[in-house]
Each structure stands twice: as C-alpha cells, then as structure tokens.
C-alpha cells in the first residue's frame, strides 16, 4: 500500500519571493503513524502542509497523499486529507453544528449519517452545549476543537494539524492530545506541526526537523535524543570554600565523561555566594555522579544541591537549528 504521505524533492517558491520557502524536502509518513513536523518560525511547515492539502501550488518536485499526487489530481487528494489550520477559518455564517453538517455535505456524506456524526463529534470534542453557538461566540480553544471535529467528519485518511495546541490552556491541550491518541488507535495518519517540543515528543512516532525549507533530520524522538552528544546534564550548586570559579570549571571539565561545563547562575542564600554549574555529559548522567562528587570532595568543595537532567527534544532542536532568532 502507498505511504500515507510521500514528499520528494519538494520545492515551493512564492511569487515575488527571492528564496524558496520549501527547498528540496523529501520524507514519507507511514500509514497510521503520527508524524511531527518541527522547525523554527518560517521554516516552511505551514507551506508544506498547504501543499499537501492542495491550498498551495508546488513549484517543483512531487507530493502524494494516500498515493494520489496533489498536483495532478487535487480533487481526489481533497477526499483523502483534512486540515486544522493555524488560523481559524470556520464558516462564520453558520453555527457550530452547521459548520460540521455543511462540511460533511460538501464531502458527500449522506444525510442521516452526517447528523449522527456531527452529534457524535460535538460530544467527543466537548462541544455538545455549543452546538447552536455562533462561531464568533466560541473561545479560541472551542474554535480549535470545532475545527478538529470538522476535519474528522469526512473520515480523512490523513489529518494535518498545524500547531494544534497554540493558544490552548493546559486542560484543552491535554484534551487535544488525548483526541490525537484516539486517532492513533483508529488508524488515522496524523501529521502535526508544533513548536511545543514536549508535545512533539509525547505524541509523535517520528519527527522531522525542517529549517529554511530543508529537512535536517528525521527519526523517532528517542533516537534523536540518544544521538545527541553531551546532552545529559548534571546541575550542581557548590560552596567553593575559596576555590575560584575558573579553577572549579577546570576541575569539573577534567572528570572523565564530562564534555563541557557552563556556569548558569549564582545562589545567594544569605551567606557566601554559591555558583550553580551545569555539566554536559556524554553518557547517562547518573553514572557520573560518583566521580563528580569525589572530585569536588577532594578539593574541599561542598555540594549544596545536585540534580540530573536528561536531554529533551528541545535540546536536539536547539542543537540542530541553532540559537539565533528568526
């Protein structure tokens, strides 16, 4: 069976633009997979989603959803996809339930079935009491949930979620995450873009990181994190007892397994200022606790606080896309 999404050497240059918004992107999404598309602002995520949902015309390369090329047969492609866009685009002339019903009608869902599905989805999205509400009267989170319901009503093969939880409160975000997980169990393929690394890590089977329209890396979140050198951390707060801070950094850097030491702050809890240091380590941070403590003890430096940090997807993201602002 064809992959759910197949993008090869995809290029998009907007008219009047001097650079490519998408610049030679290739990746595949398997059926039933939840795929995270990550990247800094302006990386080309929305553009890629736009191409795959036939809203944006590609400049070069090929993009297929469910085996159908979006460029040569956009009408068939629209049957297979649904999108929850970054910006609200509900039909403001219709109420919440009507938004679902008309959308289903456009997609040829029979009358009895669309009424049943609309009520079912409103209920599932926690919007039953908003069925008759005007779209303008919905909160941001409610609009978002209504757009998800609308996207699901024509039973798409691939659902695109462009930043599904931006602007949602923690409850609503968890709710959306649960719904996405439901979709996984129903076998719907989901492509989601997000800036929330925790979200990507939690939901995605695999993530692709794009920047400047190019794919930088693609793997499971676990593999990406494992591949990050020196990404486990140990934070120590010490009472130097006369050892100056340069010496302290040298000492800790010399412990085998520590790749880099950074001073991240100072605790001023009344008495002597206590420097806080972060050690970046190559392997499992807990294995280095002993050696680090021993080294400090040898030089009569007291440890007043110590904590371990395992690397997160965010560290991977920063490592490969850099720190500068877009």
């Amino acid at each position, binding site marked *: 069976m064809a992959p759910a999404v197949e993008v090869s050497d995809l290029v998009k240059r907007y008219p009047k633009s001097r650079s490519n918004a998408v610049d030679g992107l290739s990746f595949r999404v398997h059926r039933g997979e939840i795929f995270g598309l990550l990247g800094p602002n302006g990386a080309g995520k929305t553009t890629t989603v736009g191409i795959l949902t036939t809203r944006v*015309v590609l400049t070069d390369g090929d993009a297929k959803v469910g085996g159908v090329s979006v460029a040569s047969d956009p009408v068939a492609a629209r049957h297979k996809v649904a999108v929850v866009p970054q910006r609200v*685009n509900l039909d403001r002339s219709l109420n919440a339930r009507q938004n679902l019903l008309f959308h289903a009608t456009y997609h040829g869902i029979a009358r009895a079935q669309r009424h049943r599905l609309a009520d079912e989805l409103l209920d599932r999205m926690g919007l039953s009491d908003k069925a008759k509400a005007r779209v303008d009267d919905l909160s941001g989170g409610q609009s978002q949930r209504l757009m998800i319901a609308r996207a699901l009503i024509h039973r798409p093969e691939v659902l695109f979620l462009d930043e599904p939880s931006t602007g949602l409160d923690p409850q609503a975000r968890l709710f959306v995450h649960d719904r996405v997980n439901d979709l996984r169990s129903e076998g719907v393929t989901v492509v989601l873009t997000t800036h929330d690394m925790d979200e990507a890590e939690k939901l995605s089977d695999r993530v692709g990181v794009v920047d400047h329209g190019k794919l930088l890396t693609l793997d499971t979140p676990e593999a990406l994190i494992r591949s990050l050198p020196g990404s486990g951390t140990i934070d120590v707060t010490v009472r130097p007892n006369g050892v100056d801070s340069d010496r302290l950094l040298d000492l800790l850097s010399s412990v085998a397994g520590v790749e880099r030491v950074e001073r991240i702050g100072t605790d001023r809890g009344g008495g002597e200022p206590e420097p806080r240091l972060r050690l970046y380590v190559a392997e499992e941070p807990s294995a280095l606790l002993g050696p680090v403590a021993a080294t400090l003890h040898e030089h009569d430096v007291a440890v007043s606080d110590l904590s371990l940090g395992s690397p997160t997807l965010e560290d991977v993201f920063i490592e490969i896309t850099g720190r500068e602002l877009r």
Partner: protein
Amino acid sequence: MSSMRAFVAVLGRDVFVTGRELPSFLAQVLVQPVALLFIFGKVLGQLGYTQPGYAQILLPGMIALNAFLVSLQNTSFPLVLDFSYSREIEDRLLAPLPISWVAAEKMLFGALRGLFAALLMIPIGFAMLGDIDWKLSGLPFAVLCMVLGSFAGATVGLTVGAAVPPRRINIMFAVILAPLIFTGASQFPWAQLDQLRWFQVLCLFNPLTYVSEGMRGALLPSVPHMAPWVCVVALVAACGIFGVLGIKFFLRRALD
C-alpha cells in the same frame, strides 16, 4: 460525479445562508431601485418635470439595472470579504471539487440573486407606476436579456471581487459601481443619444447598456432602441470575457 454533488452542496450552503437573511437581502436589493423609480418615475412626473411616458422608459431600465448590479454586488462583496481576514471560503476550497467550480458557483449564485431582484421589480413597478403598457410578446426576449444580464453582472462581479484587495473596497464603490449605474442606459434610451455622441460611445463599454436596450426594445418597440441581436451578442461576449478573467483572478487568489 462527486464534484457535481459537492457543487450542489456548496450552492445549497449559499441558498441556506441567504434564506435566513432574507429580510436584509430584500432591503439590500430593493430600497435603492424602488427609491429611484419613485422619484424619477412618479414624483418628477407628477410635478411635471418629466414628459409623460418617461416612467414607461424607466421601468425596463430599472429592472435591467437590478439584474446586472445586484448580481455584480452579490458576487463581488462577499468575495472580497471571503478572501480577507475571515478566510471563510477555505472550507469550500478544500471540498472535493475543482477550484474553478467554486468560482462558477459564486457566479451562479450571484446571478440567481440578481435575477430574483430583477423579477421582484416587475410587480413593484406595476403597482407603483400604474399604467404600464408592455408588448407581452416581447416578454420572452426580455427575460432572456434579464438572465444574460444577471450572468454578465456576476462575471464582472467575480472579476472585480477577486481583483480588488479588501482595503480597496471603498474605492470600488466610487470608481466602479457609480459609473456603471449611470452609463448603462437604464435611465435613458441609448439610441436617442446622438446629440451626445461621446457619451453614447462610452455607454457601449458598459454591459448594462445592452441589458437595458434589449429589454426596452422587446417591451416598448416604439421607443428607438439597439438591434436585439447586438444586445445578445454583446452580453454573451461579456459573460465569456469576464467569466474567464474572473475565474483566472479567483484561482490566483484562492491558491498560493
């Protein structure tokens, strides 16, 4: 097949929304032409400022004006808004039918509204002006002109609506609508303009002229008028040219 079904559904949505807003729709399409008809056909006539019979000339022109202009406005205004901040139309652009069909639906629906508004003017005109003397055998051709006029208005509306950026919507009123209202031979018979040759030529560029002249020629054959076949050819040509142009602009707006 499924595209056809989607087309009907998209049309159904517009009918549904309009049906719910019927009073405001009626106000929008009737207040202005009824006021014009009343002042020029009734008040000025009774005060003796217009010749007897001017109301006769005015009524077919007002019906034509409604067919053309209501179609134009009802296609262009919603489109300008749809493509602006609200992006409401996106749901339809993502429905399983070709984008050009969505454009065609917008035209068809605008034309239907214009046609409806024009038909409504007939009983209103009769009730208001009283002694209207139409040649009834000309009615079928007059209806043909109304239909063609509605479609011509809708195609011009699509072109304008897809070409005008939202922040220019005020300009649209001043530089497009007003000239169209007054150069469309709806308040005067075009064929009698030979004393004002430049204006007569100018009117030829307005599709409304052919709607007015066609209807007046069919219903009031004794009033000098343009040849009927010229009206039909010109209106079909206008539908073709603006239809193609409108769809092209629409596609450009709809897809990035």
